[in-house]
């Protein structure tokens, strides 16, 4: 390991972050695995693509865990610095988004635990994480019961555990598959992701089918 894998030097590493879409155009059609391999090899365009595609989503996701926006920003920055340092020896990644969500979650929890000021509030933060907004746009068939039904759904959603809310939001807000959810939530089996969603939805089922 004498020769560290050096990324190819571009004229300017800033690769025109905003208003330049070459990296997006080039990588859009590629699979996650190909993009990740290119990044691992030191391709700066691949890094540019990752940053542009995932940083805002990561930020939004992170804010569901903890509302300290600058802490989330720090975590994202650290993650990318760390990933860049490990280039050349990165593990293969099949779904980049769920992998980045996984390490972001870990990093946030690590940071919350390590900072003394929040040590007593750490559990509260997790307890309140992944709050769900149930929008009032929803229209149900039986108008007269609509308001009541909405309220029931809302309070049923509030009773879900943080993990259940996390899985529901990954499914509905992020549009992830069960496979991706199991990666993001570090379940060893896809079955576990299905189970947690089914269990969460079973408490809503009665309200939904009620006429």
């Amino acid at each position, binding site marked *: 390991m004498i020769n*560290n894998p050096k990324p190819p030097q571009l004229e300017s*590493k*800033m690769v025109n*972050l*905003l208003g330049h879409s070459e990296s997006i155009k080039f990588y859009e059609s590629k699979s996650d695995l190909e993009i990740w391999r290119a990044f691992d090899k030191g391709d700066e365009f691949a890094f540019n693509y990752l*940053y542009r595609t995932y*940083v*805002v989503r990561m*930020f*939004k996701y992170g*804010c*569901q865990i903890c*509302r300290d*926006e*600058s802490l989330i*920003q*720090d975590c*994202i*920055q*650290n993650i*990318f*610095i*760390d990933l*860049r*340092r490990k280039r050349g020896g990165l593990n293969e990644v099949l779904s980049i988004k769920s992998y980045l969500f996984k390490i972001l979650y870990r990093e946030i929890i690590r940071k919350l635990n390590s900072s003394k000021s929040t040590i007593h509030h750490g559990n509260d933060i997790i307890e309140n994480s992944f*709050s*769900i*907004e*149930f*929008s009032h*746009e*929803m*229209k*149900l*068939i039986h108008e007269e019961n609509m308001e009541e039904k909405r309220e029931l759904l809302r309070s049923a*959603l509030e009773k879900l555990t943080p993990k259940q809310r996390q899985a*529901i*939001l990954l*499914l*509905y*807000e992020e*549009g992830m*598959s*069960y496979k991706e959810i199991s990666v993001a939530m570090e379940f060893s089996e896809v079955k576990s992701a*299905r189970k947690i*969603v*089914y269990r969460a*939805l*079973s408490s*809503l*089922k009665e309200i*939904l*089918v009620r006429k």
Partner: protein
Amino acid sequence: MISVYMKYKDYDIENFISDEFFVQWVKNPSENNRHFWEKWLEQHPDKRFVVYEAANFIRSINYNINPDLPDKVYVDMYENILKFDEAKPVNKAGRNSGGFFYLFPVKSIAASILLMFCLWIQYEAINFRTENEEEIQIAIISKSNPVGQKSIIDLPDGSRVHLNSESEIEFPASFSEDKRWVTLKGEAFFEIQKESRPFYVESGLTSIHVMGTTFNVNQSENGSLYVALVTGKVRVNSKEGEEVDLEPKEMLVIEQSGTYYKTGFDPLDIIAWKDKTLVFKSASLREIKSKLEKWYGVQVEFKGVFDNNWTYSGIYEDEMLENVLRGICLTSGMKFSIENKKITITNPK
């Protein structure tokens, strides 16, 4: 294939909402899932309601917290990440000890922004106090909708405003003792509480004086202003001092040039939007395009040869875009495709 089609026909709402293939179609429609679900719906028209209810449920669930990452932070972080590997070449020992330094930039930027903000607030506060003691008491609330979104706003006096997409309304957090007012850009339907204080809607250069009433105001893109009265009484004052009283079912049109006239109106045309009802009344292709774009916040493009005399009529109550497009295309033999927010309508004939 048959077995796949069979599987979903016994589904109830809770099966749909936990089916990832179904969720994918609702959240990220692609060529593949759209093809399947459209075919499936054609074969199971009785399942339409369950499917729409399930899709609506999925769409109703969102993050409660929706912060934006400021552009400045977005760019700074990128720069910090790149600068960091110049400053510190690959060095395993340094990985842990480096922790504190590399988060320094974001923190310090945040701190200096906060400091500047505090200074500014203080400066503003001092300046305001000395200038006008009363003005600062009344905060102005501003609500606006982007394209494709409508909202209902309750005013401090209990009046209600249905605000259409691409529209903006401003009003004080509390009305004064002698007057209630809002300013409007775009279109809104008003349900005004009857009380002794007069109510004014200011739209461009026109002021509408109301007592207690329901009416629609539309400051259209072509520069004209449409005031349509449903119940009660309103008086419209132009800035030139002209005054027109409206009776129920009358609409006042003020053109950009200043000329104005009264006309009747079809409530379905003018106020159905507030009940989420999309109406096409002998609509031309151009009207269809502009209505769909405004209603759903999408871009519509027509490709191919179309009959210029063709028009379409239809009423859709709180429908999904896919269903409206299907309806339009069903009677005309046209085809449509959706890619993100871009809709292409083609005429294969």
